[in-house]
């Protein structure tokens, strides 16, 4: 309490100092000042003090909780001793351990889901690393990432609110947060299920510009069926809710495809975990493989992380990819140490030529769906205009996974009695004709493919 009161008084003085400094420099043009680190440094000092106050609160809470029976075991104190927790986590984070080692070490920390609120109090540097730590349980990663997301939104909002103030203290990190605010807000919006089924977790959240992120619909620590949903060209967290809504459709369809069966839970991950190439004509990168190779390595790391966390109760693992996401996923599914139960490719922008058909992918089952190929612009809204263009204009990823020679199990997307046809390259269209729109033949088939029911596919 005293610490906070002193902080408030000091903060007021810091603002007054910053204001006076700004007035002095603006009225004294003869003063050449290249930098003003002491003002910024003072603000950082106050931020550290605020974090310390939060730590002290946490320890005080522990004593308060122990007050009921008049005793507080050393182990209990240890568990809530923030410095101890930070040191333990720092040791885990700094050790350079792989996912399997992290998963093995983690239980020693003694943390459970009930500690999620305490994790949110950790310093930013720890949160940033923990949130993306492969091998750590997803509840802990999500707790860290959600707190980081909220801190960055607060930072961005404060930066924008203070823009017109003469006494504002410039913060480069806050400016970056402000630039990323649309993406941060879209990720935030994707974090609620809005009363749809499936609890949401933010299982990864990067410092990239815009940030990369992955939202799990369903509990990734416990689900018996997991689907990584990989988006295609032009996707980014700037429209995270578009991808998470499409992933929700897949989640719902999987549930309906298995209704009446024993259900240990499922999870669909809206994985915006790589930088996707822009749509042409802004860039021709979609015809190359640089983005896919980089993204493939990231997806492979995510899949291996799941393998490590769930090594004692492995779920069925599926990869569902759209457009350029199929190119990206192909790199992941040829990486050493990666193997999944199924890979479903829709509207493929091309499987890399160095992969020899479905047999070259590390997946027990390979499925592929593609709507009727139509001429770009001329036949708009009557089929898929862009998947074939992506393959045909590339010199490195020209394979169509729906080609019989490729060896995948194919399914229809052009509509069937009672089921709508796909009439666009997108996963969602305003008229309900995207690959992951409800009531489409495509979505129904994806529901069966990702729940191991190939016999029920409509060709």
């Amino acid at each position, binding site marked *: 309490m005293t610490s906070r009161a002193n902080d408030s008084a000091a903060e007021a003085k810091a603002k007054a100092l910053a204001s006076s400094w700004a007035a002095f420099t603006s009225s004294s043009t003869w003063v050449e000042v290249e930098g003003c680190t002491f003002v910024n440094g003072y603000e950082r000092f106050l931020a550290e003090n605020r974090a310390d106050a939060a730590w002290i609160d946490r320890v005080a809470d522990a004593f308060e909780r122990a007050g009921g029976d008049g005793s507080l075991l050393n182990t209990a104190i240890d568990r809530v001793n923030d410095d101890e927790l930070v040191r333990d986590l720092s040791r885990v984070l700094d050790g350079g351990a792989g996912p399997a080692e992290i998963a093995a070490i983690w239980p020693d920390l003694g943390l459970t889901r009930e500690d999620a609120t305490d994790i949110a109090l950790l310093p930013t540097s720890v949160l940033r690393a923990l949130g993306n730590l492969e091998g750590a349980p997803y509840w802990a990663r999500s707790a860290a990432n959600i707190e980081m997301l909220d801190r960055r939104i607060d930072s961005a909002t404060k930066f924008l609110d203070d823009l017109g103030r003469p006494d504002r203290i410039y913060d480069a990190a806050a400016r970056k947060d402000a630039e990323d605010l649309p993406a941060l807000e879209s990720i935030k919006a994707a974090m609620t299920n809005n009363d749809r089924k499936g609890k949401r977790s933010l299982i990864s959240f990067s410092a990239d510009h815009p940030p990369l992120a992955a939202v799990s619909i369903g509990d990734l620590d416990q689900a018996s069926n997991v689907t990584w949903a990989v988006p295609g060209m032009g996707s980014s967290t700037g429209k995270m809710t578009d991808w998470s809504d499409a992933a929700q459709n897949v989640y719902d369809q999987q549930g309906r495809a298995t209704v009446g069966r024993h259900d240990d839970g499922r999870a669909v991950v809206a994985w915006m975990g790589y930088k996707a190439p822009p749509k042409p004509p802004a860039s021709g990168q979609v015809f190359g493989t640089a983005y896919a190779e980089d993204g493939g390595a990231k997806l492979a790391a995510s899949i291996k992380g799941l393998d490590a966390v769930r090594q004692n109760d492995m779920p069925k693992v599926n990869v569902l990819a759209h457009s350029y996401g199929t190119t990206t996923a192909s790199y992941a599914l040829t990486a050493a140490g990666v193997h999944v139960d199924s890979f479903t490719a829709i509207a493929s922008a091309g499987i890399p030529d160095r992969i020899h058909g479905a047999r070259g992918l590390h997946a027990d089952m390979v499925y592929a769906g593609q709507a009727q190929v139509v001429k770009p612009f*001329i036949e708009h809204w009557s089929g898929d205009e862009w998947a074939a263009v992506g393959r045909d204009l590339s010199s490195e990823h020209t394979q169509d996974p729906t080609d019989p020679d490729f060896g995948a199990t194919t399914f229809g997307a052009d509509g069937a009695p009672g089921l709508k046809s796909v009439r666009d390259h997108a996963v969602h269209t305003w008229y309900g004709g995207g690959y992951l729109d409800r009531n489409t033949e495509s979505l129904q088939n994806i529901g069966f493919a990702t729940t191991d029911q190939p016999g029920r596919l409509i060709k």
Partner: protein
Amino acid sequence: MNSIRRKLINIGGSAAAALLAAVVLTSCSGGPALNAEEAKKKVVTFVDNSTDALGDGWKVDSGPGLGKCDRGPGLGGISYVYIKYGPAGQDPAADVDTVEQLWKRQGMTTERYESGGSDPVRGVRGTGGPVGSVDFLASSEGYSIEGDSRCVAGDFDQISRDSQE
């Protein structure tokens, strides 16, 4: 790269011709405008009435929960998705028929569908009437009905963020 550029130029030429062909678009929702609460209420009532016609044992699986939709090109909106699961009946085909007749009486346009396989999933999908779409899926293992309300005006992202505050 030259080859790629030539192909892009050809596509671009086709595009210019296509862009001249104006397309008149109609809204996907139709019918009188509803507000969000009315849309939600209608889909819940419609699905509940449908499951009542099929007997006991139905439970809410999901919703009514918010979904993204479009009222037309570039016109974002919200809808409510409501899903119920129920036990399989003795005769799924007959139950599909029962549901289809019920929906037709309520002004829905219906279409039946069937999955592949020796033990196919049967279903009927309805559009129009008081909701945007509704789908009854009947397999020998269990039944489900998914209703999607009409798409109404609303900012999905803003509502989603506000609900977390």
